[in-house]
């Protein structure tokens, strides 16, 4: 039978349930929300969005909310998994179309999503990343089902070319009746407001964060007598790898004691390799290829300078990580990057080889003169700036506010669609919304909600996870829960790959 089997962590959960303390299944407490994070991008895939979702969920769970994550299946990782602290992840068997985002027929994901929303009695649906099709589908269906919706935009988008025009129109449609939008930087907020033609009041700015304990400095690892520049990013055009390819020979010819360490994988790797071959820099430019998440820190601490050559960034996590490891950051002055670090921790340059080289020259000179800030000092400055707990707290505020709002009824929604997203697209999507509504009715008739078992909470107010960690839990259960904690976190680390 077409069952997607799941690792057997469910058992202990239920066991605890049956040992007396059965949780009251469908009572939705006002302060504590039941949140469903939806995005195409999640572990084992790696990147900013993925870690954002994971860390945010963890902190929200700490604060006593119920959080589940919905994403699409990665390889044979289908079905339902439990991660640290009983964070439940649904890997839905949807077809992947183009770099890890699913193909959409708008409707085909409705039955599954509805089932999940109902059985987990979700109150707030929180979608991530405007590139994720699944996220937009979930928004669409959640509105149809009358749930509160929040959307986090992680990326910037231009207005110049045709593709961006189309995607912006889609974004307008999908955001026009979303309750609240979260952006990761003020620039990103401006961008999103313009793209979605939104009222800026419903757009909050909540920056990303890094876990400072993961990124601690260690100057002893640096190669003395040399100056090492570290670059960690996917090797793609948007990350300005062509600029890097220009910088490397210029600086290497000038400073014989300069080394480059480049972590990450991508189509532009070819360019770097060609440069390296042309200028015979094999021992001075190290290409590490794709990095696992836990390796990143060990690479970072080997360097003096962290270089970021992105051509566009909403909020560059990489530079914060670099700074947190006590590196002097040199970056292009694009997108939200100027907002991220205080002036004395970052050197901002124009996105040209010339300007970047000047910036690096300056830093190298300082390094030689020895009047750079000490790694420890930088770390101490940075570690307080962005923490996930803070992010979670601010996100929680958004949830509270959203929970108070009323969800648009179908007719209001249609009205909104028709009159705020242009005549053509508006009508089309209004029509689609109607279809979706009808499909929902059909599903309600086919599979009434009374036929669906309410899921047993792992997290949340009555989550079983916290009940174990209480001392009165049987030693057996205790040990088991520990086993799962360690097990799943180990799994996370394994899945993490840069």
């Amino acid at each position, binding site marked *: 039978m077409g069952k997607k089997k799941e690792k057997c962590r469910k058992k202990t959960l239920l066991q605890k349930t049956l040992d007396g303390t059965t949780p009251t299944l469908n009572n939705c407490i006002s302060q504590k929300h039941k949140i469903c994070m939806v995005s195409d991008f999640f572990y084992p895939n790696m990147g900013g969005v993925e870690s954002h979702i994971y860390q945010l969920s963890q902190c929200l769970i700490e604060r006593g909310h119920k959080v589940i994550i919905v994403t699409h299946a990665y390889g044979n990782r289908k079905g339902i998994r439990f991660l640290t602290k009983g964070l439940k992840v649904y890997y839905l068997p949807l077809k992947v179309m183009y770099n890890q985002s699913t193909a959409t027929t708008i409707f085909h994901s409705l039955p599954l999503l509805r089932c999940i929303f109902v059985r987990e009695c979700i109150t707030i649906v929180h979608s991530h990343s405007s590139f994720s099709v699944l996220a937009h589908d979930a928004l669409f269906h959640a509105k149809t089902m009358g749930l509160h919706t929040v959307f986090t935009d992680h990326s910037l988008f231009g*207005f110049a070319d045709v593709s961006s025009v189309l995607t912006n129109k889609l974004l307008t449609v999908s955001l026009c009746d979303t309750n609240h939008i979260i952006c990761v930087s003020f620039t990103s907020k*401006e961008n999103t407001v313009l793209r979605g033609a939104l009222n800026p009041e419903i757009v909050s700015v909540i920056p990303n964060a890094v876990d400072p304990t993961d990124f601690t400095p260690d100057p002893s690892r640096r190669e003395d007598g040399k100056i090492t520049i570290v670059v960690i990013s996917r090797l793609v055009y948007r990350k300005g790898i062509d600029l890097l390819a220009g910088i490397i020979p210029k600086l290497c010819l000038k400073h014989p004691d300069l080394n480059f360490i480049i972590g990450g994988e991508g189509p532009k790797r070819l360019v770097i390799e060609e*440069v390296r071959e042309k200028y015979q820099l094999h021992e001075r430019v190290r290409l590490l290829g794709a990095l696992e998440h836990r390796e990143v820190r060990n690479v970072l601490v080997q360097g003096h300078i962290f270089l970021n050559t992105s051509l566009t960034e909403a909020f560059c996590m990489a530079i914060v990580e670099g700074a947190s490891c006590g590196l002097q950051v040199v970056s292009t002055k694009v997108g939200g990057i100027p907002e991220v670090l205080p002036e004395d921790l970052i050197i901002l340059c124009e996105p040209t080889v010339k300007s970047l080289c000047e910036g690096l020259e300056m830093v190298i000179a300082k390094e030689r003169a020895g009047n750079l800030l000490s790694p420890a000092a930088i770390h101490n400055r940075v570690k307080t700036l962005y923490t996930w707990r803070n992010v979670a707290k601010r996100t929680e505020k958004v949830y509270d506010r959203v929970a108070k709002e009323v969800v648009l009824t179908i007719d209001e929604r249609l009205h909104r669609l028709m009159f705020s997203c242009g005549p053509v697209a508006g009508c089309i999507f209004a029509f689609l919304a109607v279809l979706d509504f009808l499909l929902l009715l059909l599903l309600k008739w086919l599979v009434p909600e009374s036929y669906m078992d309410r899921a047993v909470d792992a997290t949340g107010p009555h989550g079983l996870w916290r009940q174990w960690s209480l001392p009165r839990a049987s030693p057996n259960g205790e040990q088991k829960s520990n086993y799962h904690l360690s097990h799943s976190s180990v799994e996370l680390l394994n899945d993490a790959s840069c």
Partner: protein
Amino acid sequence: KCAYRHPGVRWRKVLYEPQPFPDNYVDERFLEELRKNIYVRRYRYWSVVFESGLVAQQLACVSVFVVLWWYMDRGLLTPHWLFGTGLLLSTVGYVAYDLVDGGLGRHQSGRTRWADLKSAIVFVLFTYGFSPLLKTLTESISTDTIYAMSFLMLLAHLVFFEYSTHMAVASSSLSLSVAIFASVCLASRLPGSLHAFATVTCAIEVFALWPLLLRRLKSHVPQGYVAVSLLVSVASVAVALSVTVVGGVLLALLLLCISLLCPYLLICLQLHKDNIHGPWDEAEITEDLSRFLR
């Protein structure tokens, strides 16, 4: 309102320090970095006309070729004559090609005359060898099909022709091969194999060699280029008139429209441009980075 709840505190567009404002606070300086139409280029009319001349040029060439083929089809033109004149003109062109820039280009490319001669011989021999085959090639296919196909091909030639160096769709080799394909199709309709031969050689001269010369003229002696292109356009209209009056008039109108009206429209429409720029734009790399690889 938050502003005067914390008097003196001014909102700053930074994330790294906590500010006494709610997360969804909208300052009056919101979107202040928004810019519009910063990359608008001001065109000068005659320069645009000068550039767009090439398009009209190519159109004229195509029409000339078609008319020549029509003459041969009607038997008003003997293949020997066509071939002879073609040979003559191309030798003249060849000489001109070197004179224009004083052999500078030849010096750079390092291409010997022997190579030129060789390719010329190759052209002629292959065409001559294949011409009987060409004649029987498409006899089982209906004439209309052939006409339609060659029309489409010539259109494609016009679309893909490399009018300026950096164009998205342009591909010189594709445009050339399409043109040759069309010429072969047309040639296979002619009564004799010699006709086919003449037509194809003519096609080579018109579609492959002539643009080379023209481009060089354009870059070195602009006046000459203008003169020549005018001449060709007029000639094309003239020969077209000799076939059908309507066609000739239409061609003339089309040429005028392309070379005069379209530039005017372009400049008018510049005023209605409205595109948004801001810090979120993806920075494009202006400088030429390939020098590091070369």
